[in-house]
């Protein structure tokens, strides 16, 4: 319990320092609860998510960093490894492959990498996975692009 607080406090300090260094990630801690964090990440370029800003919610367990944080997308996203309704993310490092050397910041980087390189063989969003598995890259791109426009980009006019 206390160890996780101390570690999160360290990460908080680090985030304050690094804010300028990584323009793609904005991590923020809940004002009243150090175990609740949110992040704004930019959709990677040359993907259908480019130009979008996606919000993530972190719920950090008391055993952190021995247990991984729970992360989900608050912003709707069309991606094979993200549950379309709940925003749940299928990513090995958030489950079996977790290592305490990961930080909230580096988890964000891993999620950005997942956005750029989907794994259609372990889909949480079957429609999205099937499009990619059947080789319909164009179909996948246009669906993902549409949802990026709808949910992750500021409304125009």
């Amino acid at each position, binding site marked *: 319990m*206390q160890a996780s607080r101390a*570690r999160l406090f360290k990460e908080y300090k680090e985030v304050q320092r690094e804010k300028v260094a990584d323009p793609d990630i904005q991590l923020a801690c809940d004002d009243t609860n150090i175990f609740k964090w949110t992040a704004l990440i930019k959709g990677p370029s040359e993907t259908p998510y480019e130009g979008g800003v996606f919000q993530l919610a972190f719920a950090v367990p008391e055993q952190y960093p021995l247990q991984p944080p729970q992360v989900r997308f608050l912003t709707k996203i069309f991606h094979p490894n993200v549950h379309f309704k709940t925003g749940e993310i299928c990513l090995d490092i958030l489950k079996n492959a977790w290592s305490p050397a990961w930080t909230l910041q580096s988890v964000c980087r891993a999620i950005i990498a997942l956005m750029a390189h989907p794994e259609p063989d372990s889909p949480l969003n079957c429609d999205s996975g099937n499009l990619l598995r059947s080789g319909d890259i164009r179909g996948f791109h246009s669906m993902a692009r549409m949802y990026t426009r709808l949910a992750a980009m500021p409304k125009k006019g």
Partner: protein
Amino acid sequence: MKQEEEELIHNTTSSSEDSNPCPICLGPIVQDSYLDKCLHKFCYNCIVHWTKVVTSKHSYKLSSVKCPLCKMENFSVIHGFDGSSFQHYYINQNFENGGFILTKAHKYRLQCYYTEPGFVGDIFKVSRYWKSFKYLQPNCWLQSWLKREIQALIQEEDVEVIMHHILGVINSFMRRNDQYSRSRTPEAKEEEFQALISDAARPFLAARTERFVNEMELFLASGLNIEAYDAVYKQRLGWSAPGVTSETTGGLSEQRPIIPYLYIFDEDSDGTD
């Protein structure tokens, strides 16, 4: 633990950035510990907690843990390095049998193996032991001595099987000497004894076998109980010996580095006439 955290928080608030923090707690490293293969460095508590989390997730006995940084398989945590010696925390062992950590008595026995052979040969006369047929009197402390010795050498708690195996070989040798005439020379008997025990112990003790046999002879020759024997040995080692304290708290040991080869004795006191 508490103190460690306060230190952590204090360190962050005073904004002094440590160049090489522990990858797990991100704080300054407390009790430097290294994984044995990749040699990545962590706090002792952090890495041991992590190995416990990993091993508790598996129903079968894990003997290795992947490094949190590089994923290399590691079998133990090296810690307590004091300039001349260090300790191992073995992944499966500590989890499986509730933590066998070498006690101070075990550490002292291991230390003895780093001294010159004949280190206490001037005190405990092995040749006299054989010449005066002292081996005909059973030594009631031998079993406990053997157990501790084997535990220290192979760093496992449950050594009953090995201990009884070796003890059996010793007893049958002594009995045989009872029955047969005393026609053979003490030297020949000693040699036979050494060969028998070596054969029995080698599969378990490997390269430490010869020295183990010598140490056992010294213990037998001393005719002392373990406490008295330890006191003599420790005095020679330069340990201030307040008796055998067994501390099993896996923390820092107060073991003082001693310089092996500090005393070198003439061999003549132990030689044959």
